[in-house]
C-alpha cells in the first residue's frame, strides 16, 4: 500500500491545488486565523510595547527576567521561592524522568499479565481526572490531619505537616503529586509501543541466552525510541503549561514558593492588568514549547513525504 501511496504522491507533486480544493481548508483556517493566529501575533506585538503603548523593544523582557517573581537570585541559593522560571525547570527535571521511566517500567511489568487492563486503568485514572480535581486531591492527600501521606509518615515515625502549606515543601509535593497524575500517559504510550514489537525478537534473544536485563536494554528500549520522543515531548509541554493544578492546590503559594510561569502570566494579566509583562511571559512560554516541539515537527514532515 505504501508503494502505491508513494507513487501517487510523486505524480501529484507540484500540482497546484484548485480553488475547489482550497474550500476544504477554509472553515478551519478562518477560525484558526481569527482566534489563534491573530491573538498570538497580538501578544507578541504587545510584549514589545510599554503600558503607555510606547515601543520599547526588549525592555519588558529585561524587566520580567530581572523580576523576583520570575527568577529570584536569592532563592536559587537559599531555597524557595526561586521564581517561576526555575520552578518550571525543576518541574521538568524531576517530573520528566520519573514519569517516563515509571511509565515504561509499568508498561513492561503489565505487558503479559492477565487482566492487565485493570492495572492499566488504575494507573491511567489520573489522566482522566480534570486537573482542577487533581489539585483538590493533592491538597487532600498532603493535609496534616486527613491526608494519607502524613498517616504513612506518622506510621513510619516521621513528623507530619501540611506539605503544600510550607515554602520548603510546597513545590516538591506538587511535582511528586503530578508524577502520580501523569504516569498513566507514558505507560499507555509505551504499552501500545510494546504491542508493536514482534514476539520473535524476544524468542530469538531468549534462545541466544540473553538475560531479561539485556533484553530490556538491547531490544525493548531501542525499539521504543519513537515512543520515547513522543512521551518526552508531550510531557515537557505539559510541565511547561502547568496551571490548573497549581491554581487549585496552592495558588502558587505560600509566598510564591510554588509559582509557575503560566500562573504568573495569569497574575500579571488578570490581577495586575499589566499586559506587557504578561505578554512577555506568554511569549517566553511559547518559545520554550516551540523549541520542545521541533523533533515532533521533523518526524511528522518526514512521514508526510
Amino acid at each position, binding site marked *: 500500500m505504501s508503494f502505491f501511496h508513494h507513487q*501517487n504522491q510523486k505524480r501529484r507533486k507540484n500540482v497546484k491545488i484548485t480553488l475547489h480544493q482550497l474550500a476544504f481548508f477554509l472553515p478551519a483556517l478562518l477560525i484558526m486565523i481569527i482566534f489563534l493566529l491573530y491573538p498570538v501575533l497580538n501578544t507578541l506585538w504587545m510584549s514589545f510595547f510599554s503600558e503607555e503603548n510606547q515601543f520599547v523593544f526588549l525592555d519588558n523582557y529585561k524587566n520580567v527576567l530581572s523580576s523576583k517573581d520570575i527568577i529570584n537570585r536569592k532563592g536559587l541559593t537559599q531555597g524557595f521561592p526561586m521564581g517561576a522560571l526555575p520552578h518550571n525547570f525543576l518541574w521538568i527535571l524531576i517530573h520528566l524522568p520519573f514519569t517516563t521511566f515509571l511509565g515504561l517500567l509499568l508498561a513492561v511489568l503489565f505487558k503479559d499479565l492477565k487482566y492487565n487492563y485493570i492495572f492499566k486503568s488504575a494507573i491511567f485514572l489520573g489522566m482522566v481526572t480534570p486537573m482542577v480535581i487533581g489539585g483538590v486531591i493533592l491538597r487532600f492527600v498532603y493535609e496534616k490531619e486527613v491526608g494519607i501521606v502524613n498517616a504513612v509518615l506518622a506510621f513510619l515515625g516521621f513528623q507530619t505537616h501540611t506539605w503544600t502549606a510550607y515554602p520548603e515543601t510546597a513545590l516538591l509535593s506538587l511535582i511528586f503529586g503530578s508524577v502520580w497524575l501523569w504516569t498513566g500517559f507514558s505507560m499507555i504510550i509505551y504499552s501500545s509501543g510494546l504491542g508493536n514489537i514482534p514476539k520473535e525478537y524476544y524468542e530469538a534473544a531468549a534462545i541466544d541466552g540473553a538475560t531479561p536485563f539485556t533484553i530490556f536494554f538491547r531490544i525493548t528500549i531501542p525499539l521504543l525510541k519513537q515512543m520515547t520522543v513522543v512521551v518526552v515531548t508531550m510531557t515537557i509541554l505539559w510541565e511547561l503549561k502547568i496551571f490548573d493544578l497549581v491554581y487549585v492546590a496552592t495558588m502558587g503559594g505560600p509566598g510564591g514558593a510554588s509559582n509557575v510561569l503560566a500562573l504568573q502570566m495569569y497574575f500579571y494579566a488578570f490581577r495586575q492588568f499589566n499586559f506587557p509583562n504578561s505578554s512577555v511571559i506568554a511569549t517566553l512560554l511559547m518559545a520554550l514549547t516551540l523549541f520542545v516541539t521541533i523533533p515532533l515537527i521533523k518526524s511528522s514532515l518526514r512521514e508526510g513525504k
Partner: protein
Amino acid sequence: MKKVQAINAVKYLLAIVISVIWVLPFLGIVMTSIRPLQEVIYGWWNVKPFTPSVTNYVNAWNHPTAPLSQGTFNSLLVALPSTLIPILAASLAAYGFARFRSPLVTFLFILIILLMALPQQMIAIPIFQLMKNLNLLNTYLGLIIIHSAWGLPWIIFFLRNFFITLPIEIEESAKIDGASDFVVFSRIILPVSWPALISSIVLQFMWVWSDFFLALILIYSPDKLLATQRIPLMRGQYHVDWGVLTAASVVSMVAPLFIFAFLQKYYVRGLVGWTTK
C-alpha cells in the same frame, strides 16, 4: 517451570500493590464524600464509625454560592457544541491535508503543528479583548468559539494521520468516474472513518470538560460558572469542608469516568494516535 511461576507470582503481586497505591487517593475522596466530616477529620481510613450518607452530595449539588447542579448543566452546555463544531471543520481540512499536495498545503501543515504546541496563555489577553469587543465576554458562545478554535489543530492532525492510512485506490476510481473531491470525502472517506471521529469526539469532550483556564478568563457571572470553576469556590470559609469538596470532585469525575469506562478503546487509540502516528 517453577521458576517461571514464581516470577509471575511476584509480577502479579507487584502489579496489585502498585495499582492499589495508585488508586488510594481516589478511594480517599470517595470515602470522605460519603461520610460526615467528624468521622473523617482524622483520616478516612478509620472506618469505625462508618455512617454512609449522601448529605455531602446534596450539599455540593445545592451549594448556596456555587451549586454544582448548575455548574454541571453549564459544562454540558459548553462541552457538546465545543466538541461537534471543530470536528466538522477539522475533518474537511484533515482530508485536504491528507490528499492535496502543494507547497501551500505543506506550509499550512507546519503551521498546524506549531499551533498544537501553543500555550493557552499566548492567546489569553487578545482573546479577552476580542470577546469584549464582540460583546461575547461572559457568554457561552464566546467560550464555545475559542474551544472550537483551540481543538482544531489537534483534531486536524489526528484525522489527517488517520486519512493517510486509508487506501487511495477506491478514491481514485471514484474520481475517474467523475466524483468530486467533496463527494469522495463525504461518501467514501467519512463512512469508514467513524472510529477516528469517535476518538476525536471523546478526546475533545474530555478536554473541554476538564478545561479551567479559558473558562476562568471568559466566564465570570456566578450563575454562569462551569463545574471546574465552582469546585475551587467550595472550600468553605473558616475550614476546608472536605465532605462537600470531595463530593463535588466525585460528581465532576462522573462524565470523564463514564466515557473512559465505555469508550476506553477510542480514548486510548485517540491519545496514542493523537500524539504518534
